[in-house]
């Protein structure tokens, strides 16, 4: 894919003209756009937190430092937290709107499936972020998750890949950090681009 492919992609994402009907607020309530906006805020605040956060045994101590020592650190952490919660809610409401307006029907079936996968990944991202807080609550949540995995045949190896070796008092591990920051966030970012491209390609240009 060369220049023409790039032009095609940007042309679909930002077309010169859009349909008037798609601009009505009630067409989308801007929920897909709000979800993407939350993802952008999460990416920016997440990158800033990366400079100070340390996964593993130092997780809780590094978060305490971010919260109390780093200028605006507490604000940054709160922003990351609330953007995450708003993203889960707006993705869910976006799904409700799509089903209500029957926008899952053909030619948009693949986009519906991508959206459901995105919803699942968003929920798992929220969970992995909760574990990275590194306190006793995160340790308890990691223990429940690990127990669920190990109840499956061969699940112990899967649990190790996903959770690493968390303690019941601290759910933050390097494995969980890699999943949260790189794999899950990367997959969500890529799928969102694909999702938008499919919407535009189907002719359904929506506001925000």
């Amino acid at each position, binding site marked *: 894919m060369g220049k023409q492919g790039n032009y*095609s992609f940007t*042309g679909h994402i*930002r*077309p*010169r*003209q*859009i*349909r*008037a*009907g798609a*601009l*009505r*607020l009630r067409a989308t309530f*801007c929920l897909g*756009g*709000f979800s993407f*906006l*939350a993802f952008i805020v999460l990416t920016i605040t997440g990158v800033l937190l990366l400079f100070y956060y340390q996964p593993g045994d130092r997780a*809780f101590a590094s978060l*305490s430092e971010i*919260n109390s020592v780093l200028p605006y650190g507490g*604000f940054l*952490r*709160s*922003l990351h*937290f*609330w*953007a995450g919660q*708003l993203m*889960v809610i707006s993705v869910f409401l976006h799904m*409700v709107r799509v*089903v*209500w307006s*029957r926008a*899952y*029907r053909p*030619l948009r*079936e693949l986009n*519906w499936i991508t959206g*459901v996968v995105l919803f699942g990944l968003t929920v798992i991202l*929220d969970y992995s972020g909760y574990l990275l*807080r*590194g*306190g*006793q*609550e*995160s340790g*308890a*949540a990691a223990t*429940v998750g690990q127990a*669920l995995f190990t*109840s499956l045949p061969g699940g112990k190896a899967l649990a190790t890949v996903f959770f690493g070796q968390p303690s*019941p008092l*601290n759910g933050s591990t390097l494995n969980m950090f890699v999943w949260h920051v790189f794999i899950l966030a990367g997959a969500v970012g890529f799928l969102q681009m694909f999702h938008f491209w499919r919407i535009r*390609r189907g*002719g*359904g*240009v929506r*506001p*925000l």
Partner: protein
Amino acid sequence: MDLIESERPQVPVEVEQSGSQEKLPLIELQVREYIGTFLWLGLLFALTAGLKVPLDSSPKAAAISISKAPWVFGAIQWLLQRWPAWLSGWVLPLLSMSVLLTLPWWGRKVGKTWAWIIFLILSLVWVGLTFVYWSESIN
């Protein structure tokens, strides 16, 4: 490169007649995007400023008995406290996701109204259980 005309979705007659197929310049969309962005960011900053996110209990403090889940997994946690792990942690969530993924197929098979009802029941059950778990955990 634009779409081949035959690949475009069929536009309902009423939409064509309502004039909603009229084309407008991109700036019309951008203005709405900017307004929406400012409103959403306002809500986010208000939440951030108004509701401080506390730290968890320190892992170095005396261990306290906690059975807690983030609110997004509250429904599963509530089920786990009552039913076997294989059912509450795997079968029910995966079954719900499978129904969601195949909703376009259900729409064709049982009709759009039933597809909506199926989705509504699923959503109400999971959201309802999340609220039940949340209200029990704060009491």
